[in-house]
């Protein structure tokens, strides 16, 4: 395992910064001296977050409008982020939607939106960010939030799961492509996290639902370690290992 890399002074662009997870990640990052640019579609919130983060960390935090579904705007968004921070070392893609599998089953437009927001749009941001870091030739890091749901398709959420699975594969490919350029690619696979995305869903086994603070610490630690794939909390690695090993013929009959 490589030694810890300091995040001090690193210029990090958070894409989807108003997400429940990203907000706490941002606090962890400024506590470590990172410089942030927040991308969000809700600018009023993002500006409030930026002020909060500046007061916590004592470093400037900038804000830019980001609309995930407007793929054509992604390159300009990243260019602005780089310009506002005076450089770019890392892009962390956090936006996404869980959607409603029932509705997605009945109306493919809903399914498509889940796919767009969890696969297409993140891939678009990552492809522009990868090109930018490659052009700079300064190394750097790409991070994206996938999900344990992408490890195995389940009747309850396979639209979301398949989009996350696509994202995982995209990140794997990028990782190989960018390794020689010294650019690290980190795939984060959270289990259920207690955020607005899941509030009110009454997750069975509430104890398996993690607090965003714990997840954020896991993500930032993985960034410092230069990890490639990380489950947060880490026990999900074990659970998914077991679930993935179950033969399809048996898995399809399990009510999961």
């Amino acid at each position, binding site marked *: 395992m490589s030694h810890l890399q300091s995040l001090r002074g690193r210029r990090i662009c958070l894409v989807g910064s108003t997400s429940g997870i990203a907000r706490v990640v941002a606090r962890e990052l400024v506590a470590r001296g990172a410089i942030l640019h927040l991308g969000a579609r809700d600018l009023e919130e993002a500006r409030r977050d930026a002020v909060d983060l500046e007061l916590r960390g004592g470093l400037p935090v900038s804000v830019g409008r980001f609309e995930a579904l407007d793929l054509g705007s992604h390159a300009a968004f990243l260019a602005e982020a780089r310009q506002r921070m005076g450089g770019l070392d890392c892009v962390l893609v956090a936006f996404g939607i869980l959607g409603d599998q029932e509705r997605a089953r009945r109306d493919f437009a809903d399914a498509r939106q889940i796919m767009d927001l969890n696969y297409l749009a993140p891939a678009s941001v990552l492809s522009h960010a990868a090109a930018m870091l490659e052009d700079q030739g300064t190394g750097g890091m790409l991070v994206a939030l996938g999900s344990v749901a992408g490890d195995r398709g389940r009747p309850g959420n396979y639209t979301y799961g398949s989009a996350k699975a696509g994202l995982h594969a995209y990140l794997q490919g990028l990782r190989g492509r960018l390794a020689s350029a010294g650019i690290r690619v980190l795939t984060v696979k959270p289990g259920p996290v207690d955020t607005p995305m899941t*509030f009110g*869903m009454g997750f069975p086994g509430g104890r398996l639902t993690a607090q965003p603070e714990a997840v954020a610490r896991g993500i930032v630690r993985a960034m410092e370690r230069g990890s490639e794939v990380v489950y947060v909390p880490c026990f999900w690695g074990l659970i998914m290992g077991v679930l993935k090993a179950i033969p399809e013929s048996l898995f399809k009959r399990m009510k999961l």
Partner: protein
Amino acid sequence: MTKTKVGLAAETRKLAGWGRYPEATGLAVRPEKLSAVRAAVGSDRWSSVLARGLGRSYGDPAFNPEGCTLFTERLDRLISFDPASGWLRAEGGLSFRAILDLFLPRGWFLPVTPGTRHVTLAGALACDVHGKNHHRDGSVGRHVGGLRMLLASGEEVECSAQERPDLFHATVGGMGLTGLVLEAELRLRPIQTAMIRQQVRPAGDLDSLMALLEEHDNRVPYSVAWLDTVAEGRNLGRGVLLLGDHAGIADLPSSQARNPLSRRPGLRATVPFDAPGGLLNPTTIRAFNSTYYNLQKRKAGESLIALDPYFYPLDIVDDWNRMYGRSGFVQYQFVVPTSTARSTLVGVLEACARKGLASFLSVLKRFGPGAGNLSFPFEGYTLTLDFPVAPGLFEFLDDLDWMVLDAGGRLYLAKDARMSPATFRAMYPEFRRWLEVKHQVDPHDRFRSAQSVRLAMHSQEVSSR
């Protein structure tokens, strides 16, 4: 799951205060954004709303089972800080714990703090909480500047002691019933070290304990007494006075003086399940009282103690409220004027003894002048007692209410689960004036709690007069 346009999901939760009595079930939302909190207050999916902080009030003031309870702990952003004056502006859900974590290392402390740091800024304000320095510095409202409030109408307004003072004073101590505090300003106080110079002074009976408390009124910023509720006869009301002051750098041993603001958080523990039948039963409580008195007596004298264990001894154990077991407990806190304090305290302690009731943690403290409206403290003595909920307890507490009322005293709403609307009105003569303001800003009682319903703190009363 129900979702609105802003993606605000509600869930049905079991709701209770810190004493876990009473319990109810109701809808809950947990907004993380302004748009979400606005939508929740304005939503027609529920008939009424209430903001909740960290749920550290004891009885039923922090939930609304018939409407929707808004969990605000994620609305916790800092908005501004002026290092020249110590004025901090933040969202109402910011916790005292977070304020300490962020500002103690920079040399700032809370102007007033309750005995736990797990409270929110707005929750502390809504109860106008007091600390060990009330006799000198008053309650938290005295250290609050401007507020930004979200009213029932959806309007957002600023208020302070200068701007819309009626609304400001009705909100400080107003138990969340005038609107939702989005932002508040709190003036932090500069400190040099994270240590406290503590003095422990045992007193063998109530008279000497009260004399000690009064003697130190003007000399020491922090003062509070622990009372042995088991002692009887000539030991009745014996206790230990705990005095404190912030240590200066010169007070620290040289090893610590180099890092004067570093904290020593101490141990952590948790109560992972409900103690069967209650770990705290009459036998263990009696044993604890005597042991604690004798232990403290041996510690008499001066010492240096870390700030966290000094102010927050109970925070060492997470979820300590579970020690009382399933049926929960109530805290009974009253204040009586100095003139009637002694006779009331003797009366209450003797009544407890007759009933065979001992309180686990009993705290006696002097209050300075009060802030008016529904704010609890006024000049005199306050006593806090803990009792596990058991058959016969409430009849007994009704009797105590009479003693308190006769003495010109009142109960603390933040700890109340059971007083009657009539008792409340008799104890809070300013309620009528408060209600006028409530009526102006919330004529249809959009903001309600289980407590406000129980005590009939309704605007409707004004309009129907």
